[in-house]
């Protein structure tokens, strides 16, 4: 259980989750310079969307048939909330002082949490998420659950699709232009409002994938899971260089591996035996963030602000 390969695998799994959520922070920030602090809740509502679909499916339906429906349900909920938040809450504040949309995001985050809490108390009213069949798989000394494999594969597929979309499609090119210089992008004929909506929608979709994967991994979900996951994913986005989609994924993976290794090994260091274990995860995650930002304030793959001009 405590071998290094196992810790690395755990870190990659956790990191894939952070990376999927971090994409939403980084895309929105890259285009409108807004930290969407409600994004953790978009992940959470995606998980509940998937669970709601699952509880309404007929008994005895195969998990492989249910999975796409659950993903669709989660994606619809997350994307609608993400796009709705942009349209109704953030767009009217686009030219307001920075603090206004930030506070709006925090308010939205609380409102979404409370709404889910009232509507779906503690997620105990329905079934829990199904378990994916098969596994655990043993690869050398590493044990992996099938839910973990789903998570990692989903992260790889989503990331590859997003990279191809941004690099090769006309809309992807318009996104790059809007991120680099929104006014000039408009002068090219780009409808930047549409690009902003697409960025929120893609972030919402990725959050829904993470929400579904987290339900499959842990079985239970709660109305407040978005807070900590959102904070970690935001950390991952900053760690990797906010605004850069590859940075978000890399930051997620680095953060996941650092957390799992820290909780396993820090307590072995003489004199630090009380500082290890799972409850110290978050502490080490932020220590890592601070250290990286001291050395590279722009994050691992971030560009210096001067390059934006």
């Amino acid at each position, binding site marked *: 259980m405590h071998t290094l390969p196992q810790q690395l695998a755990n870190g990659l799994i956790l990191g894939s989750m952070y990376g999927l959520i971090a994409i939403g922070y980084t895309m929105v920030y890259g285009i409108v310079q807004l930290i969407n602090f409600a994004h953790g809740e978009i992940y959470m509502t995606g998980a509940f969307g998937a669970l709601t679909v699952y509880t309404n499916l007929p008994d005895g339906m195969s998990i492989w048939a249910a999975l796409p429906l659950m993903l669709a349900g989660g994606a619809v909920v997350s994307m609608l909330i993400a796009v709705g938040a942009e349209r109704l809450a953030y767009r009217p504040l686009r030219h307001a002082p920075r603090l206004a949309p930030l506070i709006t995001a925090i308010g939205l985050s609380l409102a979404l949490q409370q709404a889910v809490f009232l509507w779906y108390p503690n997620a105990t009213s329905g079934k829990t998420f199904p378990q994916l069949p098969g596994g655990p798989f043993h690869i050398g000394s590493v044990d992996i659950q099938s839910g973990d494999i789903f998570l990692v594969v989903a992260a790889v597929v989503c990331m590859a699709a997003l990279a191809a979309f941004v690099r090769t499609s*006309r809309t992807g*090119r*318009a996104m*790059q*232009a809007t991120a*680099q*210089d929104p*006014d*000039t*992008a*408009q*002068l*090219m*004929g*780009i*409808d*930047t*409002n549409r690009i902003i909506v697409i960025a929120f929608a893609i972030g919402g979709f990725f959050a829904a994938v993470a929400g579904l994967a987290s339900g499959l991994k842990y079985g239970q979900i709660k109305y407040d899971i978005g807070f900590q996951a959102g904070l970690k994913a935001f950390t991952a986005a900053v760690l990797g260089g906010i605004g850069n989609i590859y940075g978000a994924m890399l930051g997620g993976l680095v953060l996941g591996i650092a957390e799992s290794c820290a909780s396993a090994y820090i307590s072995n260091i003489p004199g630090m035996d009380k500082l290890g274990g799972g409850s110290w995860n978050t502490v080490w995650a932020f220590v890592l963030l601070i250290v990286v930002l001291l050395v590279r304030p722009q994050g691992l793959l971030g*560009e210096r602000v001067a*390059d934006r*001009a």
Partner: protein
Amino acid sequence: MTALLEVENLRVAYGKIEAVKGISFSVEAGQVVTLIGTNGAGKTTTLRTLSGLLKPIGGRIVFDGKQLSRMPPHKIVSLGLAHSPEGRHIFPRLTIEQNLQLGAYLRKDSAGIAKDIARAYELFPILGERRRQAAGTLSGGEQQMLAMGRALMCQPKLLMLDEPSMGLSPIMMQKIMATIVELKSQGTTILLVEQNAQAALSLADQAHVMEVGSIKISGTGQDLLHDEGVRKTYLGED
């Protein structure tokens, strides 16, 4: 014949401060019209309002028979009004070729786009040599060429150039001005904003001098070039 662009009593404000205080002018198809004046006269504000980046608080803008004042920028571009902004604003992390392709964002004819990119490389050979390079690596003058080439990619009916000679070496400035002359000879309609009044007036059909948000003097380029007041204030003569 009505003008291609008709601006009537245009007023633009930043908050409570009025930067453009009711100006009127027009641009006929095939003409080069210039707005000159010192910093803060409202020239750039005028162009940004014409392309929809700023919303006017009063007045009318009619381009090619259509009212522009409430239209978003991407719709205005689609009517054939291109804007090469002050400070060039190329996309620094995209290649030169990608910048040019973005200029043709609204066009669907890929063969025509390829032909116009080739034409831009003919007009500015240095851009062709460096087509795969990130645009941010170009010198100021080369970036200006790219910004002009990019604005031409939408096959505009009217090309607006904001301070194309700003910050350039005298040689580079001459090159840019020569290009404007060449575009004019090809029949491109141009609205040119310049601080280099001498150069702008000598190639303009029609010229307007702006001071603190208003047009003070109007006339042909040659008239203003020989106007005593203009010579004193803008051409640095005693």
